[in-house]
C-alpha cells in the first residue's frame, strides 16, 4: 500500500498515471481534476463522492466512495455525484407509525424482487435489501436499525431494477423510530422544567460575576464523576 510505484487509472475511460497508495479522490486530483462536484467531507460521511469502478480483467462493476477506496492498477471509474430520485414530503408530527407509513409514502418498496443488488452496491456494507424487506413488513424499528450507517450516497437507488428509493425510505423510518418508538427520557423532561423555572440561573449568574481567581479555584475543586458512561 505504501510504496512509490505508480498505477494506471482510467478516469471515464481516459488513462492517467498516478502514484500507488492514494485514494481514488486523491489520485484524480493528482491527475489534474479539481472537484466542484464529487467531493464533500472527504472522510466517508457525506456520500458526495459515490464512484462506480471496474478492475482490469473483471466484468463486474464495483461501488465505493472515492475518498475511502484505494486506487488499483487498471481501474476504470466514473463518479455519480447526484441521484435524481424523488422523495416524498411529509409532516412527521402528523404520522402514525402503527400504520404502514413507509409503504404509504414509498409504495415502490412492494416492487422489491429480492435481487440484493442494492446490498451489493452499498459502500457502507449495509444490508439494504433486508431493510427494504423490513419496510415492506411495516417494521419501522428494524428498518431504522439496519439502515443506521447510511450516508445517502444513492448508489443503491441507482442500481435498483425496481426503482426503490432506499435511502429516502430509510430516512423516514429512522425519523419515525426516533420520534415515536424511542421515548424521551424522563430526566430530560424534568430538566426542561427546572430550566424553565430558573433553577440554575442563580448559580450561573454567580459564576459570571466571579473574579478569575475564584473561578479557577472553583474549577480546581470540581468533582469528576466516576465511570465511562
Amino acid at each position: 500500500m505504501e510504496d512509490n510505484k505508480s498505477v494506471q487509472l482510467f478516469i471515464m475511460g481516459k488513462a492517467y498515471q498516478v502514484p500507488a497508495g492514494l485514494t481514488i479522490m486523491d489520485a484524480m486530483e493528482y491527475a489534474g481534476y479539481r472537484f466542484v462536484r464529487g467531493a464533500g467531507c472527504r472522510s466517508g460521511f457525506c456520500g458526495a463522492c459515490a464512484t462506480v469502478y471496474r478492475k482490469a480483467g473483471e466484468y463486474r462493476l464495483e461501488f465505493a466512495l472515492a475518498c475511502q477506496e484505494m486506487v488499483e492498477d487498471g481501474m476504470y471509474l466514473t463518479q455519480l455525484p447526484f441521484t435524481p430520485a424523488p422523495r416524498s414530503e411529509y409532516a412527521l408530527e402528523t404520522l402514525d407509525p402503527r400504520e404502514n407509513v413507509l409503504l404509504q409514502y414509498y409504495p415502490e418498496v412492494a416492487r422489491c424482487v429480492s435481487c440484493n443488488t442494492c446490498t451489493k452496491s452499498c459502500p457502507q456494507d449495509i444490508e439494504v435489501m433486508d431493510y427494504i424487506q423490513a419496510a415492506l413488513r411495516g417494521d419501522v424499528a428494524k428498518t431504522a436499525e439496519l439502515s443506521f450507517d447510511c450516508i445517502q450516497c444513492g448508489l443503491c437507488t441507482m442500481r435498483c431494477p425496481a426503482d426503490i428509493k432506499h435511502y429516502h425510505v430509510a430516512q423516514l423510518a429512522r425519523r419515525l423510530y426516533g420520534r415515536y418508538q424511542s421515548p424521551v427520557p424522563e430526566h430530560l423532561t424534568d430538566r426542561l422544567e427546572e430550566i424553565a423555572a430558573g433553577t440554575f440561573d442563580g448559580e450561573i449568574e454567580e459564576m459570571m460575576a466571579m473574579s478569575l481567581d475564584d473561578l479557577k479555584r472553583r474549577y480546581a475543586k470540581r468533582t469528576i464523576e466516576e465511570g465511562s458512561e
Partner: protein
Amino acid sequence: MTAERLIGGYPASMRESIEKVAASRAKRLKAGPPAPLDAAGREEILQKFHPDYKGEKKRAVKVGPSAGELMPHEVADLLEAHPVVDPASIDLAHPDLSVKVLILGGGGAGSVAALFAREEGIPTDQILITTKLRHGDCNSIMAQGGIQAADRPQDSPAIHYLDVLGGGHYTNQPELVEGLVHDAPMIIDWHERLGVMYDKVDGSYLEAHGGGTSRMRMHSAKDYTGMEIMRVLRDEVRNLGIPVLEFSPAAELLLDERGHAAGAVLYNMETEEYVVVKADAVVMATGGFGRLHIQGFPTTNHYGATADGLVLAYRAGARLIDMDSVQYHPTGVAYPAAILGQLATEKLRNQGAVPVNADGEAFVYPLEPRDVEAAAIIRECYERGKGVTTPSGVRGVWLDTPMIEEIHGKGTIKKRLAAMWMMWNRHDIDITVDPALVFPTLHYQNGGIEIKADASTQIPGLFAGGECEGGVHGKNRLMGNSLLDYNVYGRRAGRSAAGWAKEHAAGELSLAHVTAYENGLKQAKIKTDRKAPLLLPDYRSEAVRARAVRIL
C-alpha cells in the same frame, strides 16, 4: 521507499511496537490511566508543545476592524487579500433574487437557522439557503463523538458552564457560554421531536465523558452523531420546502446605504455566473477554516472549509475574536497515509482507549481538554522520541483501541464505533485486535466573528451561528460543544434574523465597503496578488498546476 509486506494492515516494521502495546495492555488496564494534569501542568505542556503557542506562526493583521490582532499567517493572508469580484462589474440595480432572510451556508448552523426563521413566521419562499457544495456537505455531518447537554440529575447547566470555561482557559465570552449550556437540553428535546435517534439504554440516554467534562453528558448516535443530526435537519428543510441553492457560495456580502447587511453576491461555481440576492437580514453560517491547513497540518474538515464567511464579514466591518487560537484534534489518523489526518473520534477515548507510546507505555490522561491532550502527544513524539514512525515518515502514538473491547465486552467497537471500525477496516486494520496510530490534526476554528448572545454581529442585520462565529469556546473547545454550538447559535441567529427582517427592509445595495477595504490594503502598503474568499483548496499535483492554462 519499497513496498513492505503488510500484516493485518501494518508493515512489519510497526509490528514490533504493536506487540509491546499488546504485552502491556493487561497491566495498564489493571493500573488505570495516568492521572489528569493540574492547572500548572496543563499550562506548562501547552506553552512548550502546543502549535498555538509558537509565536512565529502568527502575525498581526494589518487591515480591517481587528487590525493589530495576532492570527495564523494563513488567516492573515486571506484578510490581506483582494476581492474575487470587481465591485464595478456587478449589476446591483437588478437583484436576481429578493428574500427576507438569506442564509449563507448549508451545513448544520444554516439549516437550523432556516428552520427557526420559518418557525418565527418567515414564509418558506422568503428564506434562502445558499451553499458552496451540497446541502449537508459540512463539518457538522462529520462530527462523530457526540453532543453535550446537562440533563441528568447529578449534572446541571451550571456544572456544564464551569467545564466549558475551564476548558477554554477562561477566555470564553461568559454570556455566550451561558446561552450554550442553558439551551442545550432544549436542543436535545427539539431533536427528539424531529426524530433524531440518540443512543439510549433502559429508557435513559447513554451518556459519556468527553475530554474536560466533570459529568457524563455526551449524547451520541453511535459514532455517527453529526451525520444523524444533519441528515434529519436536512430532511426537515426539504419537507418544509425551504429553498436551497447549491454550488453557489457567497463571494461578497452586500450592505445598504445605512451599512445594514442587505444580501450577497453569489458565485455559481458551475456556470461561473454571479447572482445578486437582496435580503432584509443575513445569517452567516459558513463554517470553519480547516482547509487552510494552518501550519501545514492535515485536517479533519470537509472540502469547503476555507473561512469564506470570515473574509466577507470582516470586509463588511465585523470584528473577529480569538482568531489566534486553533483546535488541533489530538487524534487524527497517522497511518495509513491515504487517510492521514482524518478524525479518530474522541469517543474512542471516552469508551476506554488510552494513548500509548512506542514502548507500550501510557503517558497522558486520555480525557484532558483537547489542546492539552494534543500537546502531550506532540511531546511524546518529538521531545521524548517515543513515537512510532510510519514508512512514509509520519510520527504518531498508538491509541489502544482493543482496551474498549476488554472494558465493555467483545463487539462494543462494531456496535458503538461502527464508522471508526469501517474506516480502518477498509485498509485491513482491525481496531478490535490492534491499536490505531494517531497524531494531532487540524480540527476546529475556535475563534470567529464576534457575536452577542442573540447571535447579532457588529453589522446591523447580520447574524452568525456555528463554527464561523467565535467567543463561545474561547481558546479551546471541548468535545461535544460544536454540535451544540451550531444548534444553539444557529437557532438564535435564525430567530434574530427573522425578528430583524420583520422590522427592517433592505435599502439600496452597495459594495462600497469592498472598495473601501481595497483602499485600506493600499494604505497599509500591502502588495499582493492574493484573492479571497478562497472557496476551494487546490489539490492538483504541482506538475499539473505548472502547466495549467485557461482557454475555455
